């Protein structure tokens, strides 16, 4: 509604420029890709700055504090100041670390998040590539995140980092299964893995009405996927300091932080698209509805964080394999039966 006309106008203008000056035609898609990359990068940067501020504000108000109040209106520029501080910080490298892996791990953790935003439908037509394997691509890409986390934990040369990395790997891999299985119910209903088709299929009723159990499983598994609090075992402060990012400082730490918050929004955006009708909503433009639904889920995750105590490692694993996985299969079987019978 907003983004699509602007982008197509930009594209037409650039095509005109290319035609006028007789530039090679491959410049058209190349420029488009660059614009898209800049848009996603800028969106993620602004989003994470806002999300960190929101997290601090929400957590403070849950504890009846104010949170940041000094920098800007109600501390709204506080995160910018913090980011500037992080850039100035010394980038320490521990002596016992595996240097190349240590340096590359933050980017390994962050890059998949950017890539995953390619298939997120922000509004009507505001999707960069509506791949026909959209959902599969999304879950395949976000899982690569684990490699960044575990290599960061391994390369730091610290027992806390290593434990955090291992825990993270175990947790992410086991929660990936119920997560994908819960999304499978939606895919069966929509009959397509294309994000656009899934949103179109929800033009009348949101899939959360047909798949309430899948939605609950998805939210639980998603919380574990992005290491939010009831499942934040990989960075349990009281046990292993900060998990896989103990040894990181400066911009490398900022990359891990960026990845964590961008992932949180990503998982909320997927939930909004798969279960809550995506960008569809009355009167207001689709971008607004998409952001509103995503932020509702993000707020839910934040409330989880300040309500529920952390699980133990064994509880976490048995919950995933003995409880969520059978439930997800049950949901899948019921969905299949209903689809066949009706």
């Amino acid at each position, binding site marked *: 509604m907003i983004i699509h006309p602007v982008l197509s106008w930009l594209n037409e203008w650039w095509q005109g420029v290319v035609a006028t000056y007789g530039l090679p035609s491959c410049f058209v898609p190349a420029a488009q890709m660059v614009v898209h990359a800049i848009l996603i990068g800028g969106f993620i940067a602004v989003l994470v700055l806002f999300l960190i501020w929101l997290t601090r504000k*929400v957590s403070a108000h849950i504890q009846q*504090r*104010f949170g940041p*109040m000094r920098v800007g209106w109600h501390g709204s520029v506080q995160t910018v100041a913090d980011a500037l501080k992080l850039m100035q910080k010394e980038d320490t490298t521990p002596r016992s670390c595996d240097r190349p892996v240590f340096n590359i791990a933050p980017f390994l953790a962050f890059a998949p998040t950017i890539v995953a935003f390619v298939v997120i439908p922000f509004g009507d037509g505001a999707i960069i590539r509506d791949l026909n394997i959209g959902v599969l691509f999304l879950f395949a890409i976000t899982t690569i995140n684990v490699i960044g986390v575990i290599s960061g934990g391994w390369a730091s040369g610290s027992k806390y980092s290593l434990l955090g990395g291992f825990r993270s790997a175990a947790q992410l891999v086991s929660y990936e299964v119920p997560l994908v299985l819960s999304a499978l119910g939606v895919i069966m209903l929509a009959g397509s893995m294309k994000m656009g088709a899934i949103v179109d299929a929800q033009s009348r009723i949101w899939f959360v009405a047909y798949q309430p159990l899948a939605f609950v499983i998805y939210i639980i598994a998603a919380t574990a996927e992005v290491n939010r609090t009831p499942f934040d075992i990989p960075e349990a402060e009281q046990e292993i300091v900060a998990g896989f990012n103990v040894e990181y400082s400066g911009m490398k730490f900022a990359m891990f932080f960026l990845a964590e918050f961008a992932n949180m929004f990503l998982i909320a955006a997927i939930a909004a698209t798969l279960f809550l009708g995506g960008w569809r909503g009355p009167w207001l433009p689709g971008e607004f509805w998409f952001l509103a639904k995503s932020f509702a889920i993000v707020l839910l995750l934040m*409330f989880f964080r300040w*309500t529920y105590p952390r699980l133990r490692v064994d509880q976490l694993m048995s919950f995933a394999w003995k409880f969520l996985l059978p439930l997800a299969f049950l949901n899948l079987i019921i969905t299949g039966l209903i689809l066949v019978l009706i």
Partner: protein
Amino acid sequence: MRVFRAIGRLVKGTWWLFVGMVTTTKHFLRRAITIQYPKERFEQWPRFRGRVAMVAGDDGGHKCTACAQCIRVCPAACITLERHKEGGVKGFVVDGYVIDIGLCIYCGLCVEVCNFDALAMVPEYEMSVYDKAELVYDIPKLLSRQLEPEFKK
């Protein structure tokens, strides 16, 4: 029967998860209780006890008799007194009386022990200064702030 018990526990557990979220939401909607310190200050209660001050007598001067009881009782040893004997005068003459507020622990024992009501705790608590020397309070400085009459010891 174990199945039923498990289902019961599941329902109960889910209910308590819900109760937890309701509690969090309630606290989220309440007003924050933080006092934004330099902008706002808390309301001082009437008999708030801040730093030590000397109580002015009827002539406006201090009431100290240099008996040194306060020095004896002070656990932080922050009071210094200079005194001498003078012919024809009963007791001592005070030359100097200094309290180092930087050492003071605000216990109020000196006020308790003073037989002549020469000391009191006044409601002043923002004592930060840029120089340690400014924390050493002599007699004029100790007399500079007085209690409201109704709260005299």
